[in-house]
Structure formats: structure tokens, C-alpha cells
């Protein structure tokens, strides 16, 4: 286990070219092309089952594509080498905290396992990051004692400890109350300004997407329909996109 080679703190640029992936004969990604610029907040929106999470797993090296390639800073990187070469973090939808460790141990896991700091320094960093996400009191709790939203915030703290060059969020505001969603959105923006991290967010949350995104991509059935600024996406005259953006539940009179 060696820490990633590149230790600069600025975000990386990401290019995806012709990415294809099938599971059991079912095509999930059908030639995805997109470019994420260094330091920008890029949101991928789309209906459930459109391939967003699978795309995210490819970007962090948890899946290998059937065809196509992923380039980081212009260089093609093999899926298995991604995490070893760049500091990347994925904030899982479920949090994916290790249930056998306390919240504090989870947050400091990256530093502990890669032996990057002394135990005292790790404790201090963990306390800072937990405080940043409003979980200062939770360091000694077990993940099972946390609510869904608290788990997600702890997962964000774990990602922050890595000081990533690319941070990926899988539905960061799902299961969160509106106030906690704002905390997460503010933290995403804060990270962009503080360490110029590149952020890629997969979300259904229109408020979050249009609130934080520099650019938005809309994915449907494994294909990107549009990539543009929030205003460009709002103006994009595609029935599916418009229905998705303006869908609202109204109780029948």
C-alpha cells in the first residue's frame, strides 16, 4: 500500500472517450464522451437506471470499461492504477463506512493505513474534518449509531482527509434534510475554492445541481444528451430533459 504519487493539491482534468459497458448483454453505457475541466464542479443528472453510478465507478477505477478510455490530465490511466496514481475520493451514497471501526477511525483510515502522519496528527486532522461537517461529537461512535445523513457527512469527512484532486459524489444529498443538504452543498463549494479540487457529482437533486454546478451533463440510457452550463441545460429543448427538470408532484384537486 503506497500513497499516490502525485501530491499536488490542485484538481485534475478528466476526459472520458467512447466509454461502453454492458452487464449480462444489457448495455448500460453506450459510448459516453465528456470532459471535466480541472477545478470545476461538474454534475451528472439523469433518471434512475441511466448509467450514472456505473459511470462514476469507472471514473474511480472500480469498474473496467468494455471499450473506450478515461484520461486524467490528458494521460490514459488503467482502471487498476487510478487510485494508486492520483488522490481520488468517492463519497458513496450509503456512506460505505467500515462498520467495524469507529467514525473517527473511519475518517482517519487513509492516513493510518498509508502511514502519512503520526497518530497524534491524525487525531487532530480527524477532529478538524469531523467538525467541518458538523460531527465533532461523533468521533467515538460506531457507524451503526449514526443516521443516514450523519453517515454521509462522515463519509464526506473521510473524503476530505485524503485532500483529493478529484472528488466524486454519488447522490450526496439523498436522505438528507434540507438543512444538511445545504451544509453539503456549501462544503462542495468551499472545497472548490480552498483546494481547487475537481468535483464530479451524480445527483437527482435539481436544487443542488443548479446551485453548485459549473457545468451539467444529462445522461439517459447510457448516452449523454447534453453538456452545458446550468443555463444552457435549462434552455435545452429536449422533452425528457424538460420533463425531468420541471417534474413536480401535485395532488389532484
Amino acid at each position, binding site marked *: *500500500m*503506497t*500513497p*499516490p504519487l502525485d501530491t499536488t493539491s490542485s484538481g485534475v482534468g478528466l476526459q472520458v472517450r467512447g466509454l461502453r459497458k454492458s452487464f449480462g448483454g444489457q448495455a448500460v453505457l453506450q459510448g459516453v464522451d465528456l470532459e471535466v475541466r480541472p477545478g470545476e464542479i461538474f454534475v451528472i443528472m439523469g433518471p434512475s437506471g441511466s448509467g450514472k453510478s456505473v459511470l462514476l*465507478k469507472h471514473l*474511480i*477505477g*472500480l469498474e473496467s470499461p468494455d471499450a473506450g478510455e478515461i484520461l486524467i490530465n490528458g494521460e490514459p490511466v488503467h482502471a487498476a492504477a487510478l*487510485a*494508486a496514481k492520483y488522490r*481520488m*475520493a*468517492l463519497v*458513496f451514497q*450509503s456512506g*460505505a*463506512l*467500515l*462498520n*467495524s471501526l469507529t467514525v473517527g477511525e473511519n475518517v482517519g*483510515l*487513509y492516513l493510518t*493505513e*498509508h*502511514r502519512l502522519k503520526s497518530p497524534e496528527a491524525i487525531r487532530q486532522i480527524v477532529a478538524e474534518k469531523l467538525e467541518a461537517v458538523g460531527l465533532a461529537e461523533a468521533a467515538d461512535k460506531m457507524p451503526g449509531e449514526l443516521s443516514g445523513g450523519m453517515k454521509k457527512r462522515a463519509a464526506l469527512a*473521510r473524503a476530505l482527509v*485524503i485532500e483529493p484532486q478529484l472528488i466524486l459524489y454519488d447522490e450526496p444529498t439523498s436522505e438528507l434534510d434540507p438543512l444538511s443538504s445545504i451544509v453539503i452543498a456549501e462544503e462542495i463549494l468551499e472545497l472548490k475554492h480552498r483546494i481547487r479540487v475537481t468535483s464530479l457529482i451524480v445527483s437527482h437533486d435539481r436544487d443542488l445541481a443548479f446551485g453548485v454546478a459549473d457545468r451539467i451533463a444529462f445522461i439517459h440510457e447510457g448516452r449523454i444528451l447534453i453538456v452545458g452550463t446550468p443555463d444552457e441545460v435549462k434552455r435545452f429543448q429536449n422533452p425528457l430533459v424538460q420533463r425531468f427538470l420541471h417534474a413536480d408532484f401535485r395532488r389532484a384537486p
Partner: protein
Amino acid sequence: MFQNIGEIALLFWRTLCALPFAWRQRQKVYDQFFEIGNASLLMVCVLSFFIGAVIALQTGPVLVERSLSSAVGGIVGISIAKELAPVMMAILIAGRIGSAMAAEIGSMRVYQEIDALRTMNIDPIHYLVLPRMLAIAIALPLLVVFAILVGWFGGAVIAEANSRIGVPFQAFFSGLRDIVEVKDVANGLFKSFCFALIIGSVSCHQGLATLGGPRGIGRSVTKAVVNSIVLIVIFDYILTRFLLK
């Protein structure tokens, strides 16, 4: 099961390659070692006492009838040291610890904890498999030492207490010393070391290969235990044949 043999062998090889990182994982090795010992020692003692007792009960009267009472200790001693203690304890540990390993790693796989480790560039083999494999490889032979001693004691107690056998305690151990050599005990311990590697590899592989939700975890646990036991029995024959030379 056999379609996975290649994957299990590969996992074993990758774990061997991770051995230089063992010192870093010493705390986890100790935790797992404690878990295995603490959970199993009492059960090992009870099981091996009664195994020794049953072997004495089965062989004792037959040998005494043929005026071979001096051989009772030796027969009980050698069968426990070379065969019954290593195999029975391995089966016990496969059920008790192999199932726990498969369930724990399987649940981590299902709930994306292993994916989370990978995204942090933490190799699950270093973090999860290596400590478990080392702990079981140390713990099982130690448990077998206990099993052999308690098994001999159980055989001796029954040999003296049962009226159809009636071999005194001292005569039992004197007969045992005449037949059982240190080499026989070492054979049993070597076998148990090999069985530990089988249980560790099969169970960790099964955990890492878990798919689906709770049902997938259940399936992995069952497969880990059954496959471990089948491989233990097959390798028992192979090792016995090899060690007879």
C-alpha cells in the same frame, strides 16, 4: 467449487506476496488471533476430550480381549495426534471461524466497504485477507496442540474408568509413549497448518466473491464452510499419503 480453485489459488498467492506487509498489520493479526482462540478454545477442549473418550471406548475392549491392553494408549494417542485432532479441529474451525470470515468480508463487499477501501488505495488483501490468514495459520496448530493433549487425557480417563477396558492412567500414557513419536505430533500440526491455509483462502475468497444482498452473504457462508470441509478431507488424504513416505 472446482471452478473457483484457480481464483482461490490466486488469492493465496497474492496473500503470500503481501507477507512483507505483515508487521504493519500486526494489531489486526492479534485481534483475529484472539477472536479465533477466544471463540474456539473451550469448544476445542470439549470436542477433543470426547473424541479421545470415544476412540478409547471403541478400541479399548477389542484390544483388551486380545490381551493387547498395552496398545490402547498408543492407538488412541496416534489416531488423535495424526488424524482426528487436526481434521476434527479444522472442520470445527471451518464452521466457526471460516463462516465468520466469509460473512464479515461478504457483508463488507455487499455494503460497498471494500469498494471504499479500493478508492482509498487500500488493498483489501493487505487489510482484510492477510491478517485473517496469518491469524488462522498460527491459531489452528496451537488449538490442535490443546486438542491432542485433551484428547489423550479424555482417552486415558475412559480407559481407566470403563470396566471393560480397565487400563490404568499410567499404563495408558506409558503405552502412548512407546508408540507416539514427536514426528507424529509434528505431522498432525503440519496438516493443521495446511488446513488453516485452506480455510483462510476459501473463506476469504468466498467473502470477496459475494454478490447480492443478505441472501448472497448467506450463500457465501454456506459455500465457504462446505468447500473448506471438502478440500480439508481431500487434502487430508494427499498430505497423509505424502507424509507416510
